């Protein structure tokens, strides 16, 4: 290994060091690419500029899934002249058994650098550092073991799910199953991007939204319920006895966003019709309160980060859909197909669906797709009279 004094600084301190990891790997495997990538990174740390440029590498029949990187300074540092990333879709909820992971590692060590990112922000396993001529074979070996490429480019992207019903009492639908279903449904559009721009699903099984779906996905599928919160009175009592009325007032009642909870004779009373399913009181008292029994999903649309229009949080488009059976999932897929068709017809190049909805108009979008107008779609009716209705 060449000296990397800048990077070496990042081996200090208690937090686990990626530099330490890379060095260990490089020393063990002696792969020149690893030395190259560290040298290039050191060079970036010194010059404060990046030196990768893009390109087009993919696998047989696919149009995306490999992020191609060629070095702009390969004359200086030839070992990492190619350093492509393979995006791999993990299981929904990022669950693994050690067998799966070990197979992955073994194949990756054989063909690539051995660097793995767990996980990319969009939810992929990122196998980082492979040369073009090894990509196909590496993919084939992975694919044999049940792994497939993730998304890139102007198409469907890889999705993320929270732990969901696998380990969470708040889960309101089976997000792992829907994730699998939806991503399989759109597998072709994920591998062969041909829309205006990217589109992302994220699946959070309750409004705590542990996948950040509202901000990071065009199609945020968030669990919710229709009926009243389930209350176990003795557990409520127990909580109050333990924490006191001041805490009940200051930490529960006073933090309910719609003032749905009142203090009544030292106890709490939830006016169910005022509740907006924010999760707060359930989070504070998980033993005492649970989501209602009539569960399903809300669909929020248009979440994305800052680029061009400023960050856009997803907007509630479908307040409720049941999501229990295969039929429910199919009905949902049909809806999403219609939505994407509308976007395909009405969107501009490099325009996320949320941007299209804002530009064309929410009303026009709903009409276009045939979604019922629902007051839940807006925070409030308009405050200006500037419209021309069809009377």
């Amino acid at each position, binding site marked *: 290994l060449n000296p990397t004094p800048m990077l070496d600084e*990042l081996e200090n301190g208690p937090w686990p060091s990626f530099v330490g990891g890379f060095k260990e790997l490089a020393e063990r495997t002696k792969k020149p690419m690893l030395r190259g990538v560290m040298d290039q990174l050191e060079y970036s*740390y010194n010059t404060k500029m990046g030196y990768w440029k893009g390109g087009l590498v993919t696998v047989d029949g696919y149009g995306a899934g490999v992020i191609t990187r060629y070095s702009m300074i390969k004359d200086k540092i030839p070992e990492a002249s190619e350093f492509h990333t393979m995006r791999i879709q993990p299981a929904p909820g990022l669950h693994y058994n050690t067998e799966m992971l070990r197979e992955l590692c073994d194949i990756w060590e054989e063909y690539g650098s051995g660097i793995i990112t767990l996980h990319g922000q969009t939810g992929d396993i990122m196998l980082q550092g492979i040369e073009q001529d090894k990509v196909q074979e590496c993919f084939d070996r992975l694919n044999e073991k049940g792994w497939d490429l993730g998304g890139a480019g102007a198409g469907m992207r890889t999705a993320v799910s929270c732990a969901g019903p696998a380990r969470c009492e708040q889960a309101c639908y089976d997000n792992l199953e829907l994730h699998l279903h939806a991503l399989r449904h759109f597998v072709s559009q994920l591998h062969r991007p041909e829309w205006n721009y990217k589109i992302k699903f994220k699946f959070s099984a309750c409004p705590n939204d542990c996948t950040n779906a509202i901000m990071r996905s065009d199609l945020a599928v968030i669990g919710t319920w229709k009926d009243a919160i389930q209350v176990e009175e003795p557990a409520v009592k127990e909580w109050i006895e333990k924490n006191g009325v001041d805490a009940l007032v200051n930490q529960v009642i006073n933090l309910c966003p719609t003032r749905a909870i009142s203090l009544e004779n030292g106890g709490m009373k939830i006016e169910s019709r005022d509740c907006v399913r924010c999760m707060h009181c359930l989070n504070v008292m998980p033993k005492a309160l649970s989501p209602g029994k009539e569960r399903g999903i809300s669909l929020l649309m248009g979440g994305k980060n800052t680029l061009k229009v400023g960050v856009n949080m997803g907007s509630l488009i479908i307040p409720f859909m049941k999501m229990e059976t295969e039929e429910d999932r199919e009905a949902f897929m049909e809806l999403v197909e219609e939505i994407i068709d509308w976007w395909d017809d009405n969107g501009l190049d490099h325009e996320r669906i949320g941007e299209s909805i804002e530009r064309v108009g929410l009303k026009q979008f709903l009409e276009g797709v045939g979604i019922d107008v629902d007051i839940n779609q807006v925070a409030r009716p308009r405050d200006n009279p500037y419209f021309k209705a069809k009377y």
Partner: protein
Amino acid sequence: MSSPERTWKTIESGPHTYQEALHPVVRKNYGKWKYHEIPRPGVLKHVAESGDAIYTVRAGTPRQDTVDMVRRLCEIADRFSDGHLRFTVRNNVEFLTPNPDNVEPMIKELESMGFPVGGAGNCVSSVSHTQGWLHCDIPATDASGVVKSMMDTLYHEFKHMEMPNKVRLSTSCCSINCGGQADIAVVVKHTRPPRINHEHLSMVCELPKAVARCPVAAIRPTVVDGKRSLMVDEAKCICCGACFGACPAMEINHPEHSKFAIWVGGKNSNARSKPSTMSIVAHNLPNNPPRWPEVTDAVGRILTAYKAGGRPWERVGEWINRIGWKRFFEETGLTFDEDMIDSYRHARTTFNQSAHVRF
């Protein structure tokens, strides 16, 4: 790309299946969990309707892992959690075991391998971050390095539950912010319009695409040295960097002019207040590898103030909404300035249209 000697026929399977990845106790109680507790930092106990309990031990990783590291995690899983593990959306690893006796030994083992146990409950969890100089084609910094520097200073906060509520951090290497909104986010901020590399441009750029990409129509076609090229109206340009993504000749990055901004109050959960976007609270911080002390310092101040002043369940943004931005700036020692006043599309909606005032 197609190789003639290929024998395997691709199965377009999409995501990997998950059933076999679930611990048997998870499979049995799937969808039937009743409540959870956090018996100690980094450990969750979930109890099912059946009475079964599963313990989760959570530990931090560098995210930019290696096969060696992953194999080490597998060893732990084989020894303590029946060969099952998962990752969280914030790069933490989790081991699930029904056996409470496995918890303490597992923690010992993880810590001894250098994986800090924590990140659950009211703590600072791992940072959601991005590619940086390691891999991206448009970065102005190295997110992994910033994150490592930051987490070294927040090690205690990861391992202890001393915050008013969860704290989510993110770090991104350009203004696009692949790392996402967070309670506190560290994001590159371009401070200068792009310089156009005219030579490069004629080779790499689809001109109309770059023109279309600009949100404020600051890019215009022009002719330079007899070749079609582009020019930027610098008075209009808002330094967003969108053009650079469309065309690598729109050189927005610069060793000195690519700076950092700090953002606070992003919240994606629906708990209590509606999800909220984050606000800028510092900018023009230098891009200072390998340790970015100015950035870690600013983040540290914010966390110190929040830790001291937040009330139970208040997320960073909610704490600020209660105490007010004025006091936020006072208590963190950061400075509000005129550039932090919104001037973009919906600026008016951020004005203080009320007599609500703080002194």
